[in-house]
């Protein structure tokens, strides 16, 4: 019945689009991954992406359902985007579910905070699939070639995290038995709970830049921890006997910007944001709920350049907690680098790419080589690998057992 409903839904999308003489595009993709360690399949996914859109002089729309089929019989229908555009002389309005992408960074999310992330498969999905659409009203006001953008989001959407049972789920370790109270983790849609963002974008001959600000919710819930103690009958000292954990989202203010410019054939990029009022875990016994509130900076510098016909790109990223307290569980500085190399053969049929995250603080890395061959203009085959190495306490090293190779077959239409 569920399958039938989904098919009907796609048929409605198709008929609606046809009635409006809309453009159809999309793809069908098979994605199969195998773990190096065990030989087990890490993923078996079939995807149908349908993009129905039309752009007219004064109005446009887009509907982008995506159907994921996992393993034997598990279906996941997602509406990535569904919005209406209204075009005026000096401004545009977009209403509906939409993905918003800000900033100049590649694979790093600093000012790009409007659309939350789907991290159920860590950072492995394509960057267009890792962002979740949000229900929003977006206004773009144009001043010459520059743009002032304002976004209002009445319904908060948190980061999607892996569920227990997923190979990407990391079981947290607690010093005592923990119980969770999820009653405060949901943010009800209301005017009071809205999020708002604003951005000014300039695209000029000398430099491109963005300046942004946001009044938002922390996409990741803060863990409020209440500790239970009892007296150890042998030592007569207090001992930790349990933890009551209440996940709760908190407000976050941020301001930042980004730029890119070209100097003698090298594109120089930068992006940074100041986050105000973020809660961090603390081991200070006097800290209320084992939390401490601090501001932090997140920024990067990157370069893109060519050597011969090979395109190269590298970024240095730092996250710095200001007014650091040594009782905090997070490090004061967390440094990461990315590296990308890409070569397209002259025929444009064969593409080689290597993308890596390198955790400098924890000495770990995610290395992602891939080769794509375009059989023709519609059909391509991609052979790739995701290799996690380094310290098991690191963001990437913790997934050492999930190193895999994979194959993607894709038909675009």
């Amino acid at each position, binding site marked *: 019945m569920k399958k039938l409903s989904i098919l009907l839904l796609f048929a409605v999308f198709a008929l609606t689009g046809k009635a409006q003489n809309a453009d159809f*595009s999309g*793809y069908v993709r098979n994605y199969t991954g195998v773990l190096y360690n065990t030989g087990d399949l890490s993923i078996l996914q079939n995807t149908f992406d349908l993009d129905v859109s039309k*752009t007219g002089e004064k109005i*446009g729309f887009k509907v982008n359902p995506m159907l994921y089929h996992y393993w034997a019989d598990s279906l996941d229908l997602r509406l990535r985007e569904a919005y209406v555009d209204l*075009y005026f002389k000096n401004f*545009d309005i977009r209403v509906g579910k939409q*993905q*918003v*992408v800000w900033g*100049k960074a590649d694979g790093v999310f600093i000012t790009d905070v409007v659309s939350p992330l789907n991290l159920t498969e860590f950072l492995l999905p*394509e*960057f*267009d699939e890792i962002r979740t659409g949000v229900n929003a009203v977006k206004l*773009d006001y*144009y001043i010459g*070639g520059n*743009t002032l953008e304002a976004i209002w989001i009445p319904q908060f959407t948190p980061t999607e995290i892996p569920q227990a049972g997923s190979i990407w789920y990391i079981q947290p370790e607690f010093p005592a038995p923990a119980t969770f109270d999820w009653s405060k983790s949901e943010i009800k849609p209301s005017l009071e709970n809205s999020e708002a963002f604003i951005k000014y*974008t300039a*695209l000029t*001959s000398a430099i*491109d830049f963005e300046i942004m600000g946001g009044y938002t919710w922390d996409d990741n819930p803060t863990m409020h921890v209440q500790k239970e103690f009892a007296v150890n009958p042998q030592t007569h000292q207090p001992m930790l006997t349990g933890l009551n954990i209440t996940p709760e989202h908190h407000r976050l203010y941020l301001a930042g910007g980004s730029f*890119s*410019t*070209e100097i*003698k*054939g*090298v*594109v120089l*990029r930068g992006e940074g944001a100041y986050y105000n009022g973020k809660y961090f875990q603390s081991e200070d016994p006097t800290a209320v709920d084992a939390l401490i509130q601090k501001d932090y900076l997140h920024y990067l510098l990157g370069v*893109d*350049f*060519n050597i011969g*016909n090979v*395109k190269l790109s590298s970024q240095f990223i730092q996250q710095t907690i200001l007014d650091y307290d040594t009782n905090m569980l997070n490090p004061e500085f967390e440094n990461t680098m990315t590296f990308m190399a890409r070569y*397209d053969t*002259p*025929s*444009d*049929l064969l*593409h080689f790419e290597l993308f890596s995250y390198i955790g400098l603080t924890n000495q770990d890395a995610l290395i992602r080589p891939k080769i794509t061959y*375009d059989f*023709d*203009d*519609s059909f*391509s085959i991609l052979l790739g690998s995701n290799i996690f190495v380094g310290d098991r306490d690191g963001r990437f090293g913790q997934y050492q057992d999930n190193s895999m190779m994979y194959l993607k077959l894709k038909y*675009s*239409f």
Partner: protein
Amino acid sequence: MKNLKFTSVLIILTMIGGFNLSAQNLTGKQIIEKVYNRPTGDDQSSILTMTLINAQGKQRVRKLNQFIKDNGTNEKKIMFFTAPADVKGTSFMNWSYTSGKSDDQWIYLPALKKIKRISSDSKSDYFMGSDFTYDDLGDRHPNDDTHKFLREETLFGVKCYVVQSIPKDEDYMYSKTITWIIKTSFIGLKKEFYDEDGDLLKIMDVNSSQKISGINVITKITMQNKQKNHKTIMSLSNVKINVGIPDSKFTERMMMRGI
């Protein structure tokens, strides 16, 4: 994503005639300068179709809509890709300057929903798998080469100047080019490209042209790689010249909207 690093496409295809100069004693450089300095209109729009044909005769087609505006000191171009399917919605914008400043280039990838500034420093890359490099498609300045008038010759029944051009940069991808230029119109009719070893690499032939809004526009051109037995046919349709394309066409807004 396919290799989408772009530069001027229309330049090579829009060449004006109308010169009636007494050119008997022109040097190679003067002939090339007359080709380079020809007026091309204030703005133009068209649909560009590239058909790539490999040694086995298999064809691949790339299609895009493009708009160009020249205000005298800079030239702005924007291209919207419509085929093949996996690059549909991609747009590319290029601003070039008569001052000699490097081009500014941006690409919009609809899947990423992001405009990226890209380096214009890859002139020897092939454009979308075609037989044209970005430099082939660009507006190469006469001062970049040393030109030598070789001879006059009749090609396809048309009287032409034949000019040899040797790049001043020894690391340039071609060791020399030889161009056949129509005497009466200063339109390039044929061009041969020689590789670094001095062997013939590619031949470019003009196949057809039309007069549009008083300007001769080449509407079909073929580039054949003689070493790989691969060729690309580039054709223009729906060409409009001097229609008053507004500056607002060459902005972030239009790159993302896609029309």
